[in-house]
């Protein structure tokens, strides 16, 4: 793998069109950086998200933990208070609900951080602060020297404001 190429565009539509052209030329390891979501680019990349599934799994885990916390510990301690049943489904259901939802939220957050590649070493590699000046940065990761040349040729024909490493 060679050093990636960074191309800065002023126009998002041109950046997306360039990314499409590069994909057609066989360069698939691309990233478009922008300061707001580019829905056309997201549709091209077709990223798969499992955040919803993880939220459900987190909820199931949380429910299990809450059931253990309420029913498990209540049975373990078996303290009789005011002649009430040791295990109270109505009352414990509320705690199980809250812990279930909390676990779902935390699982969704954890999965989102994982999917977005956040909070990991080198997360800021291949970045240009021009993004926050409303520019679109196209990062082309080249497998070898040949693909690199292809990418450079294609980018040279665009209105990119800057092309560099």
């Amino acid at each position, binding site marked *: 793998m060679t050093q990636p190429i960074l191309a800065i565009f*002023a*126009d*998002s*539509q041109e950046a997306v069109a360039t990314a499409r052209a590069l994909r057609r030329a066989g360069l698939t390891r691309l*990233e*478009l*950086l*922008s*300061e*707001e*979501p*580019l829905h056309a*680019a*997201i549709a091209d*990349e077709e*990223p798969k*998200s499992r*955040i*919803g599934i993880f*939220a459900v799994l987190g909820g199931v885990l949380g429910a299990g933990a809450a059931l253990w*916390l*309420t029913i498990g*510990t*209540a049975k373990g*301690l078996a*303290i009789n*208070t005011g002649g*009430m049943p040791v295990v*109270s489904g109505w*009352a*414990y259901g*509320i*705690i199980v*609900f*809250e*812990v279930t*939802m*909390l676990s*779902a*939220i*935390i699982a*969704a*957050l954890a999965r*989102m*951080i994982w*999917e*977005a*590649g*956040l*909070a*990991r070493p080198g*997360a*800021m590699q*291949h*970045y240009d*602060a021009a*993004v*926050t000046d*409303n520019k*679109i940065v196209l990062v082309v990761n080249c497998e070898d020297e040949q693909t690199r040349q292809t990418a450079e040729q294609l980018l040279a024909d665009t209105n990119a404001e800057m092309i560099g490493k």
Partner: protein
Amino acid sequence: MQNDKATNEKINDDLLRPLRQTGWAWRVTVVVCAIFLLAAVAAFAYQLQRGIGVWGINRPVFWAFDITNFVFWIGISHAGTLISAILRVTGAEWRRPITRCAEAITVFALMIGGIFPIIHLGKPMLFYWLAPYPNERGLWPNFRSPLMWDFFAINAYFTGSLIYLYLPLIPDLALVRDKATGWRKTIYAKLSLGWRGTQRQWHALEKAVQVMAVIIIPVAVSVHTIVSWDFAMAIQPMWHSTMFGPYFVAGAIFSGIAALILAMAVIRKVFHLENYLQPIHFNNLGLLLLTLSLLWFYFTFAEYLTTWYGNEPHEKVVFQSKISGAFAPLFWTMVVCCFVIPMPILAIKKLRSISGTVIASLTVLVGMWLERFLIIVPTLSQPRLTFNWGSYRPTIFEITIAVGTVAYFILLYAVFTKLFPIIAVWEYKEGLTVSPLPHPHHDPAGATIATAE
């Protein structure tokens, strides 16, 4: 199609200005709030030293100001996350400039609300005994107690709301990171978790926010329902009601929207964000407030009508004390503040201006605080056994702590606005590209329009 360069720079300048510049209004607010907060801390310290005998509570009124404030603040917390989540789920485009203002209210209101039960414990340093963990004292919480439900519900809602506030903040933290220098840049770099704005990141963020919006709505509803069950589970006159849950939730959203309108009006004025927080936002929130005002009146009427018609002696005593007895002035003030004043202001389009909605919101907040007080104190002061009747009058210590926490809330909010963009910059910009609504910064051709109101 993204916004043109001039529009983009103007938005960045406007929305990041509060972080860069500190005006006199902000400084005065912080100093005044800090003074009130210090007074509250002093009152609390005095209470710790002398015991809760310095309060006005006495048999049979064991819950009064602290629990009123607790319920009130938890209600205010419904301004943010719940409203923001509903607007996101329904795809309401006008939500964009207001979501963060609202979400921050939730987090700070929950922090303040959570303080009161701890203060109310009398020995607040022992509050951690509520937490279920193995300990040498042989203590284990009673999960059947509604107070334990509060513990779990508020913690779940607070954690969820904090995450829900933080997630859409990440791209804006990256924006501030790129504009900052020195130690600020380091801090914002850490907070933004290495955000670059790849489409994969945007997709994950949008998906996560959607999922969380769906999860947080039932949590928010459950929180105030559970707070209402603190009362409804007790066989006390005018507490043991099946409709207390929805009544409290409606009241919470009612007071929450009022708090949001006030916060928006102040932010708009102090930070000169007139082009972002526009009359349409106040109009739409005003319509929501009107709906909630009518709903609140309906619930209140239904609650009091059934009590009156039932004619159960113990309930009737509490009922009469509110309608025509010792608590009548407070009760009728509540009705005036929650319905008589805001309803016409919000119903008449001409009056539903920014100042109109602000006036309505102020009265609603006063009315809703009184409503919380009137739920708690009249019932407790007139229990079923008549020999045990009592009364309640707050002391200066309770009032100082209550006022101090209002100041604390404003202080936290003011500090937040200095550290983070109070309007979601990326969401606002995205709105300009996808929303069909006209924006003062942008015409359909992409030309920048003058920003004068």
